[in-house]
């Protein structure tokens, strides 16, 4: 009816426009991240279930105490560096997204580049850590570490560690690949032609999510 015409502009849910004022790709990304959060949630809850029904568990301060070049006796130092690298890469991602808003191509390229470097650095650290643990005899189905109280430990400490950090590493790897694609698209002016850098935002959402997941993985495996 004619009298209701005034309210049309504020009817976000009335159809004909996106209720959240976002394009579909970003909406999908949010739902995908929710979905992925359930994947990681299931892993971490499974880990918690098994860990708390076990009689003992190795002490992370004993297991993760090596640093490349500095030897052992430095509990959690290396993983702190890894975490720091990943968080810094999130910061550079934020800067890339902001540069995209400003349509500043040079800055987008610069910060995406540093984000990719951060991702690769994190993956390299993880590769070193895995390699080091493997050298010590740890792998899927093999656990050289004893429980905190000195009793024999089941293999589930290493099983869960390699599976879940591996799954997270796979996500970081995918993020690096996505970011490299974004970098190429930015360098070839694809976003300039489109007139917006929204793709960078979506890649950024994914990158921050992977970062956030690491915080939980880090807490569950290294701190608790």
């Amino acid at each position, binding site marked *: 009816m004619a009298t209701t015409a005034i309210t049309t502009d504020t009817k976000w849910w009335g159809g*004909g426009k*996106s209720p959240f004022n976002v394009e579909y790709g970003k909406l999908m990304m949010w739902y995908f991240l929710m979905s992925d959060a359930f994947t990681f949630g299931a892993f971490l809850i499974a880990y918690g279930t098994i860990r708390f029904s076990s009689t003992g568990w190795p002490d992370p301060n004993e297991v993760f105490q090596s640093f490349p070049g500095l030897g052992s006796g430095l509990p959690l130092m290396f993983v702190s560096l890894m975490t720091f690298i990943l968080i810094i890469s999130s910061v550079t991602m934020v800067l890339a997204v902001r540069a995209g808003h400003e349509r500043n191509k040079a800055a987008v390229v610069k910060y995406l580049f540093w984000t990719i470097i951060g991702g690769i650095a994190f993956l390299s650290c993880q590769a070193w850590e895995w390699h080091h643990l493997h050298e010590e005899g740890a792998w899927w189905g093999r656990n050289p570490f004893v429980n905190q109280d000195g009793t024999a430990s089941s293999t589930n400490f290493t*099983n869960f560690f390699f599976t879940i950090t591996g799954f997270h590493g796979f996500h970081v790897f995918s993020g690096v690949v996505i970011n490299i694609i974004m970098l190429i698209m930015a360098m070839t002016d694809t976003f300039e032609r489109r007139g917006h850098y929204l793709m960078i935002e979506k890649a950024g959402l994914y990158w921050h999510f992977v970062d956030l997941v690491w915080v939980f993985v880090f807490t569950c495996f290294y701190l608790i």
Partner: protein
Amino acid sequence: MNNEGVIGTQTDVGHVHAAHHDHDGDHHHHHETFISKYIFSMDHKMIAKQFLITGMVWAIIGGLMSVLFRMQLGYPGESFPILETLLGKWAKGGTITPEAYYALVTTHGTVLVFFVLTAGLSGTFANFLIPLQIGARDMASPFMNMLSYWFFFAAGVVMLSSIFVETGPFSGGWTAYPPLSALGSASPGSKTGMDLWLISMALFVVSSLLGGLNYIATILNMRTKGMSMTRLPLTIWALFFTAILGVLSFPVLLSGFILLIFDRNFGTSFYLSDIFIQGVGALPNEGGSAILYQHLFWFLGHPEVYIIILPAMGIVSEVMSTNARKPIFGYMAMLGSLFAIAVLAFVVWAHHMFVSGLNPFLGSFFVLLTLLIAVPSAIKVFNWLTTLWRGNLRFTAGMLYSIGFVSMFISGGLTGIFLGNSALDIHLHDTYFIIAHFHIVMGVAGIFGMYAGIYHWFPKMFGRYLNNTLSYIHFWVTLAGAYLIFWPMHYEGLAGMPRRYYDYSNWESFKQFVGLNQFITIVAIIVFATQLLFLFNFFYSMYKGRKVTSQNPWGSNTLEWTTPINPGHGNWVGEIPEVHRWAYDYGKDGHDYISQTTPVGADESRH
């Protein structure tokens, strides 16, 4: 409201729109090859048909498997040469081997639950109806939509190939509980067959995720002007909640499967502890928990049954309202109960595990939450009955199947109250009672919703009608047959007859059921044959059926009936119509129906 730019939507309230002619259909001008139109199509309508026909192929394969193992159950030990012809070494001498029997049961369950009632039902109707009913030219991402179908197709190919491996397909039940599923040495089917089963299911999860994200984004973002959320037809609401359930529950299943893959291939023991296998000896695995898998599995497994039933509920609401020529009773209550079911779906999974060793105290919470589902379910049932009440019923095949759905949902839902009770479940679990319950409330009801949808939207899909006589024969035989098959199973289950046994004739206590089991087998064969009749009707009518001559043959309000009879890619010629009202103005102010595109008149009350 401003009405400018609405083209091609007449305001002839209560009339069938004049048929558009064929040239209206070719709205898009880009060249289409056979491959881009029928194979790697990005048109949501074609993808829907791909899902439907693939689902039908799987329904025939899965249905035939049930006929085969029913032969063993009805006539244990008897020889049927045809079984050897079909199954070869798996039925030497015409009798199904125990391994083949378990493989058939397992594959039947997996295929029917995932490929037919998930992909075949919500894949078909979400793809077909979402853009058409919300007023969009296609899905948000047609490309992802195409990928979703092809991942499903690939999942099907892998599952099909597992039937032909030397050690046979997986045979440990569709739930794939470890240790049977985790240890290749546990049974022949747990070897290569199980690996293929897991690959197939992983592909299926990807397909479901790609599809679900697309459905959600499309429904939220791409509704036409005026199509507010509360003007959406209930089909769309149901498909929306279905997609959310899938997006949030399938990843948990994927996690569970990943852990299972590691247990199978990489020497881990997530699910394994203290196991001794005859002929192999004690296994070194320690510290894992088989119950953990059950939690991960049923966190998907329970929402999965609502992924099956919600689209059926949406279809039934829409078809029933249209054919009762009455507004759906309690639209907001229908919507609220869909929401309640979707939420409760996530907090009841452990009722599948009452006898698994779950803490009985925890079980009591799951009893409470499970029984709570009776409330929204009852709201829906009463709303369907009150929609029928004093309606001007048109008994089309779609309507009959909708009414049949409600009948099945009541019958199967009531036994759910028995099973949701952890004390009664001690007696009833893993008996034929549970077989009867879930086949009626999920299997048959889901299939009935699917048939209701196919019969109702076939004219929109193919521009032709299905043959009515064959449709009625199909409905009545299937309805009667479904009850005759599954009703007696309640008695068998109450008498303690366990599920998944190969041969009951050795038990004195179950000898009384020999005749009943034969009867069930005979009816199952008849019902299966009747489904072939439906297939004939479907494919014959696709090419030779009576042509649809009016744009809106059912006199329906929703937007899909404002498109040309054979809509091209893009659905509407000219601009997408604007929506002015909800989808259920039937029998209002003396008008038989008022299309959603008709502006609200000055003398009308608004919704």
